[in-house]
């Protein structure tokens, strides 16, 4: 793959300028011709350098243009720190080069160039430890923000206070690690007032960005076996395609290396990677199967029949499936046993998603309800009426705070899962068939051939999509690629990978999921995952319930008290005695006597207790303080 041969054309500056003219409204042009000339120069310079992009030194090769700042635009602080590559689609402003000297000035350091001899007398310009912004500390706060330290026991209070202090300290110190992050988020930012991101096409994006990123925009034409279901692995490295006519392919989509390709000669309803790229599950016409990444069938799950949708819960090793007869079942793939299964009696289940924050499965139904399930509860833990018509798609955001639903009534609704309130309701041009949230909260929705992406649609009311793309064939599956600015779309004529700036989390945690994982690392991670497997019965709406203190409600306390006072039958077995005293009749008589006595005792006790309670109550009533002299004028009861 020689990057020079093909992509040189794309970066022709003259062409690019034409394009920018075509796709973007002109903004107030403050710069004169000189600036444009300079721009051209610069651009061609970048073009020149580009030839040596992959041949040059490692680490610097990717740099094509240096970042340029205008006076009026305010780049975020992060961008100033790192040498990020930012590409401008229309080059209007040209300014001084970004350099380290400017960086220093921005931070207010003035005494850098002092002569050596005077250094000792200099006052430290940054005394004390560096301050950590409060919002960052809040972000890294694990557990509850405020611990309730008010208890009856001073010792416990003291301990809780110490815990709180420790947690705060930990959060602060963790927030400092923000500095070590290597990458910044992607973005598509307006520079002019009248620019519109919605009008930017994928080709514009691909032309504007560097070639490695541009190569993430591609299409696989698979006309014969579609429509396709797709799924990315947790680290975003591998892609699984399942054509409904039986074609299954697993690929490393970045290098475009094929892992395996098979045809199961049966309808494929859904495909899902299991915990790693070594195995995947396929819901086929009759049963579900597990294949390895060579395409070898490992298991036939006859317990999962007629499955329409699959979800895999990676921390619990549970494969959840929803079938055509309305049956939801969970299989523990680490031991191969069925954990539980419930008939939902809600009809065909073809809308399903998981809540990544608490491993609860959400199902959408034809009546417009969305139900949420956990494996150890027979009934849905949450049942909400979301639409007046059938629900077509459900998606839950990474933190588990927001849920997006779409119905055939063309509405897209955003729900707050903490309060179960609807936050926003949008009317779409058509009912969204597929919904998907990205790691950074972008929402993608597909309407027929068109995919729309929305930014910040949960936190504020938006008026138009962030990006839009027409695929020319009906979309069957949407999935954002984790840790990449890429949206995968499975449609009836293959697979498309679209560029969505700002979709993916830029900094991965290698101990959680690592896109650059080696074989040994993968094997070690698998063992660790299995050791940390969370039991299925720990799934709860509140994922952190295990660290909370259980307090009985008054109702539960009364119930518990009642249970302790409940009559317990005494199972008395008389001893066998010699000398004819153990005739069966005698034994029975003795047994009956003891049991009867126990029962009498219980009755006596309860009667005494009740009488005492009554006495107390009547006494309290008599000395009731609410009586007043005016009571005599009250209307008397007929009784």
């Amino acid at each position, binding site marked *: 793959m020689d990057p020079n041969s093909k992509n040189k054309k794309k970066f022709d500056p003259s062409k690019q300028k034409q394009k920018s003219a075509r796709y973007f409204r002109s903004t107030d042009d403050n710069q004169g011709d000189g600036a444009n000339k300079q721009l051209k120069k610069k651009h061609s310079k970048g073009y020149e350098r580009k030839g040596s992009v992959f041949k040059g030194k490692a680490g610097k090769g990717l740099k094509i243009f240096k970042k340029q700042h205008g006076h009026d635009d305010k780049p975020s602080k992060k961008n100033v720190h790192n040498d990020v590559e930012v590409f401008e689609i229309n080059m209007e402003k040209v300014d001084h080069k970004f350099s380290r000297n400017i960086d220093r000035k921005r931070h207010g350091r003035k005494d850098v160039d002092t002569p050596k001899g005077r250094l000792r007398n200099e006052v430290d310009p940054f005394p004390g430890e560096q301050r950590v912004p409060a919002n960052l500390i809040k972000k890294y706060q694990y557990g509850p923000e405020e611990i309730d330290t008010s208890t009856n026991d001073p010792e416990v209070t003291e301990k809780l206070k110490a815990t709180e202090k420790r947690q705060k300290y930990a959060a602060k110190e963790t927030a400092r690690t923000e500095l070590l992050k290597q990458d910044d988020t992607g973005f598509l930012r307006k520079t002019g007032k009248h620019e519109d991101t919605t009008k930017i096409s994928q080709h514009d994006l691909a032309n504007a960005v560097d070639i490695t990123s541009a190569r993430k925009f591609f299409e696989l034409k698979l006309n014969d076996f579609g429509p396709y279901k797709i799924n990315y692995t947790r680290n975003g490295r591998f892609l699984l395609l399942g054509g409904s006519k039986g074609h299954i392919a697993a690929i490393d989509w970045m290098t475009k290396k094929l892992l395996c390709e098979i045809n199961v000669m049966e309808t494929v309803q859904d495909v899902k990677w299991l915990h790693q790229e070594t195995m995947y599950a396929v819901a086929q016409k009759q049963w579900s199967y597990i294949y390895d990444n060579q395409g070898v069938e490992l298991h036939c799950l006859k317990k999962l029949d007629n499955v329409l949708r699959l979800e895999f819960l990676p921390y619990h090793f549970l494969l959840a499936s929803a079938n055509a007869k309305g049956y939801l079942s969970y299989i523990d793939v680490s031991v191969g046993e069925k954990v539980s299964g419930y008939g939902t009696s809600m009809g065909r289940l073809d809308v399903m998603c998981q809540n990544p924050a*608490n491993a609860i499965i959400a199902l959408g139904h034809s009546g417009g309800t969305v139900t949420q399930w956990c494996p150890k509860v027979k009934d849905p833990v949450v049942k909400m009426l979301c639409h007046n018509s059938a629900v077509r798609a459900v998606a839950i955001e990474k933190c588990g705070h927001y849920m997006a639903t779409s119905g055939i009534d063309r509405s897209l609704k955003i729900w707050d899962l903490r309060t179960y309130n609807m936050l926003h309701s949008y009317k779409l041009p058509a009912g969204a068939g597929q919904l998907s949230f990205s790691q950074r909260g972008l929402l993608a929705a597909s309407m027929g051939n068109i995919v729309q992406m929305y930014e910040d649609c949960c936190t504020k009311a938006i008026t138009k999509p962030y990006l839009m793309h027409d695929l020319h064939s009906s979309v069957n599956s949407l999935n954002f690629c984790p840790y990449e600015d890429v949206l995968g779309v499975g449609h009836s004529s293959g697979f498309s990978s679209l560029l969505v700036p700002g979709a993916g989390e830029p900094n991965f945690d290698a101990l959680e999921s690592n896109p650059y994982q080696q074989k040994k690392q993968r094997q070690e991670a698998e063992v660790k995952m299995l050791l940390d497997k*969370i039991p299925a019965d720990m799934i709860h709406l509140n994922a952190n319930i295990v660290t909370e203190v259980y307090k009985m409600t008054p109702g539960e306390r009364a119930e518990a008290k009642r249970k302790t006072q409940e009559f317990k039958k005494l199972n008395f077995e008389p001893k066998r005695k010699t000398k004819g005293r153990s005739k069966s009749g005698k034994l029975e008589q003795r047994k009956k006597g003891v049991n009867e006595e126990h029962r009498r005792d219980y009755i006596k006790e309860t009667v005494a207790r009740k009488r005492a309670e009554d006495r107390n109550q009547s006494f309290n009533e008599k000395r009731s303080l609410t009586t007043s002299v005016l009571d005599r004028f009250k209307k008397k009861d007929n009784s």
Partner: protein
Amino acid sequence: MKVKILSRNPDNYLRETKRDIHKVPRNYDPSLHPFEASREYVRALNATKLERVFAKPFLGSLDGHRDGVNCLTKHPTRLSLLLSGSCDGEIRSWDLSRRQCISTIQAHDGFVKGLCAIPDGSGLMSCGTDQTVKQWSMNEDGILDPEPVVTLLGKSLYQQMDHSYGDNTFATCGDKVDIWEATRAEPIRSFSWGVDSVHAVKFNPVETHLLGGCGDDRSILLYDMRGSTPLRKVILKLKSNALAWNPMEAFIFTVANEDYNLYTFDMRNLREPLNMHKDHVSAVMDVDYSPTGTEFVAGSFDKTVRIFPLNIGRSRDVYHTKRMQRVSVVKWSLDDKYILSGSMEMNIRVWKARASEKLGVLKPREKEAFNYNAKLKEKFAHHPQVRRIARHRHVPKMVYNAQKEIMKITNSKRRIEKNRRLHSKPGSIPMIPEKERKVVNEVE
């Protein structure tokens, strides 16, 4: 319009050569680490289970004595040396690292009653039922000279002795407590209080003039070497067998009592013990503190050795073997890693102080993992599953049954008292805390 798309340079994330370590970029954002509480809980549970799996505290036994082991002494300067005296009058020195006997001397006729090392490590002193106190010299390798350096003839039987940590004085006890100086043939001071004899004496390692003793009249006695009369005496319900001073807090000591319990006292307030340590099911014979002063070990007639945290009333761990008989003496090694117990069936046993600890040098990763697991166990200690697994100990049937019986007895006593209080004039049967009830009298 400005655009930036995530584009990572693999060189920043991949190791350069195969010999290099893998690069592990971290992002501690909580949203990337879902289920942190549940995962920590599972890890804590696994750590607790592993701790029980690896709990193999018995390291080996030192076998060689031809009669029950009566006294043990740690060498003050060498960790691997141990000295022991038995009921046939023999003193042996042991190399703990090789688990071998280094040398043997026939020291006394009859029991070796008391044994103590001289703090500079040059020798040891012993007393026996033959009414003599002998001083022995020992070379660098722990080999004992068969001829005593000094022999002191006493007038009565000596029950125990201890050497001061500060100067070259030592104390013996019997029908009275004598303070000796190494150069003199007569005691420089004698303490007596009443007619009853004293069967245990211990110097305070911090306040070196102080010493405590246990008397046959169920008393605990405190002496100051500088004065001429004993300081204080506190009488408990039953006799105390041994006494140990806390090496870190000079005013705290613990006694092993005949009533199956141990009592920790603050010297400044003897009216009631600071803490009562229950769990043994027979008379406690000996007690010794860990060098950190946070825990102590007790050996009992119920054939078990138990480890107690200082401020908790129940034992942390119990050690027993099939062949171990009544434990007469226990010691906690000076490196805080081992426990030594001498028992009546002639063996000295070496145990780990922490049952599941891995011995030897730990690699940094191992150390980190152990620390992490310890913290997790602490965090989730109160969860019912974790607590159940961490608390479970298999004990011999005899101990198990005895525990049940003791429970039954205490419950019935409590019930009787409750009923008595219910049926008598209010206030006529006062509520006295259990700890206070154990102290009969305090005399000054």
